[in-house]
C-alpha cells in the first residue's frame, strides 16, 4: 500500500481504508459472479425430478436378486433365504471394517435393498445373476479392484472403504416399496 505524506501515525489513512474496502468488495463480487457458473454444473431440475421409484416385490422368489434403476443408479433387491439372513445376523461386528448390524441395514430381514455401486470407485459388483462370482462371503464381488461384500452388503475384504449404501425407501404396502 502506498505510503503518502499524510501517513504519519500507526493508523491507516482514509486512502488505505478505501483501498481495502474496494478490494474486499471486488473479491465478494467476483465470488458472487462465479457461483452461478459453479452451480450450473450441479444436477438440473429434470434430473432431480426423477428421484422416486415404486417397486413391486411380489414376483421376486425367495433367493432371487433383481436390479432396478433409480436415479440412473442400479439398486439391488435381494429376497434373502433364511440361511443368508442367519449368515448376515451371526457376524461378530468387531471383525467388520465398517461395523453395522444387519438389523440396521434392512427394514424386513427377508428384503435387502441397496445401491449396487461399489463404494470404492463406482463399479457394479457381480453376484446379481446366477453363475456370477459372489465373493468369499456369499454376497457380492466387485471385479474392478477385488472388494468382497457379505449377505448384508457389508464390506469384508478389499479396498472399498464402506458398506454398500442403503437408499432411503419405505414399504408402502406389504409387497411394494418406494425408493427415494
Amino acid at each position, binding site marked *: 500500500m502506498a505510503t503518502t505524506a499524510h501517513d504519519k501515525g500507526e493508523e491507516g489513512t482514509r486512502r488505505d481504508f478505501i483501498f481495502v474496502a474496494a478490494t474486499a468488495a471486488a473479491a465478494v463480487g467476483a465470488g458472487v459472479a462465479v457461483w452461478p457458473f*459453479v452451480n450450473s*454444473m*450441479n*444436477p*438440473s431440475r429434470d*434430473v432431480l425430478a426423477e428421484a422416486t421409484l415404486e417397486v413391486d416385490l411380489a414376483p421376486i422368489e425367495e433367493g432371487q436378486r433383481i*436390479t432396478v*434403476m433409480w*436415479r*440412473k*443408479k*442400479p439398486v439391488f433387491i435381494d429376497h434373502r433365504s433364511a440361511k443368508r439372513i442367519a449368515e448376515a445376523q451371526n457376524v461378530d461386528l468387531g471383525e467388520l471394517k465398517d461395523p453395522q448390524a444387519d438389523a440396521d441395514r434392512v427394514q424386513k430381514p427377508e428384503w435387502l435393498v441397496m445401491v449396487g*455401486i461399489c*463404494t*470404492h*470407485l*463406482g*463399479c*457394479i459388483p*457381480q453376484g446379481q445373476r446366477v453363475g456370477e462370482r459372489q465373493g468369499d462371503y456369499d454376497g457380492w464381488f*466387485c*471385479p*474392478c*479392484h*477385488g472388494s468382497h461384500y457379505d449377505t448384508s452388503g457389508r464390506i469384508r475384504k*478389499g*479396498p*472399498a*472403504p464402506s458398506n454398500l449404501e442403503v437408499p432411503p425407501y419405505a414399504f408402502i404396502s406389504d409387497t411394494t416399496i418406494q425408493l427415494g
Partner: protein
Amino acid sequence: MAGGPARQYNNRLVRWIEYRLPIFSAVEATIGRDMPTPKNLNYWWSLGSVLFLALIIQIATGIFLAMHYIPNGAMAFDSVEHIMRNVNHGWLLRYVHANGASLFFAAAYIHILRGMYYGSYKAPRELLWIIGVVILVIMMATAFMGYVLPWGQMSFWAATVITNLFSAIPWVGSEITTWLWGGFAVDSPTLQRFFSLHYLLPFVIFGVSLLHVWALHVHGPTNPMGISARSKQDTVPYHPYYTSKYMSVIGLALIILAFFVFYEPLFLSHADNFIAANPLQTPPNIVPEWYFLPFYAILRSVPDKLGGVILFGASIAILFLLPWLDTSRVRSARFRPTYRYFFWIFVLDVIVLGWVGAQHPEGTPLLIGRLATIYYFAHFIIILPFVGWFERPRPLPESISKPVLKSGAAATEAAE
C-alpha cells in the same frame, strides 16, 4: 521472446509490419537465425518439436471431428459410428486423432525422461520444468475426457472410476462427485461437460506451452554435457542447423503415426469400447489407455481408497518437486556414474508398473505392483537426495567445444 539485434529486412511489407509489430525478429530469435543454440544437442532434444506437431494434429483433427460428433448420452456412440461409416474421411480423422493422442504421450514421456537423464530441471530452469509438468497434467485431463466421448463401455467406466476418485475426499466427497457428474451417476450431463472441456483444454495447453518456450529461451536449452555455453564457439544458430535436424525427426514421427493409422489403427484400443455404454454392466477388467497404466497400477496397489487416491496424485505431483529432490549440482547423467544406473532402473520400474496396470489386481501382479510403487517413490524421496550427496561426479569439461576439438584452447587462441 523479444530481443536480439535489429535486423534489416529487404521486403517492404515485412519492414512495414516489423516496425509496428516485431514479430519476424521475435520468431527468428526463438527458432531462427538469431537463436544461438548449443551445438551438441542430440536427437533427444527434438521431442519438443514433435510435441508441438502432435498438439497441432490433435487440434486440427479434433475441430473437424467436433463438426460431426454429438455429445449426448443417447447419440454419442452412434455419432462416432456415423463418423466412421458415413462422413467423408471421417475414419481417417478419427484414427489420426485417437492414435495422435498416443504419439503425443509417447513424445511427452521421452521428453520428460530426457529432462530427467540430463538434469534439465536444475537451476535456473526449475520453473521451465514446473510449467512442463503443468502441461502434462492438463494433457492427462484432456486425454481422459476425450476417451470418454465415444461413450463405449470403457469410456463410461473410465469416467465412473476416475470421477469416483474424488469421492475419497473426506466429508464433501459425494457432493463433489454429484457436482462433477451433474447428476447422481455418470450420464449425459457428464458427457456434455467433458466435451466442452475437451475442446477447451488443448488451447490452454497451447497457451501454457508458449510460457514453456518463453521460459526455455531465457537461459536457452540445456545440452548433453549439462554445462552452459560459454562462447560463440559453443553455439550454432537454431536455423538452419536444428530446424533441419528436427524436421527429420518430425518425418520419422509422422511415419510411425501413419503406420498405426493405416495398418494397426486399433492396436492400442480395447474391444470393450465397441459396446455402447451400459450403466448396469461393468466390464470384467477396466483398463485405461497405455499412457495411464503406470499411474493406474499405483492407484490399485494401495489397499485403502483414500490412500490409493493420494498416492495416485502424488505420483504425478512429485515431479513438481524434482528440482529440489535431486541434490546433485551436476546436470548431465554422463558425468554422474551412480545416478546413471538408478535412472535406468527407474525407467524399468515405470515399465513394470505399466505392465502391472494392465493385469488383474490379484496375486503376483498385485505384489509386484506394490514393490514397484514403493520403488517409484523411493527413487524420488530417498535415492535422488542421497545419490547426489555421496556420488563423486566425473570432472566436467571446461566448455562444450573442448572435448570436440582436439585442442579447444589452441583453437580459441588461433581464432583470436
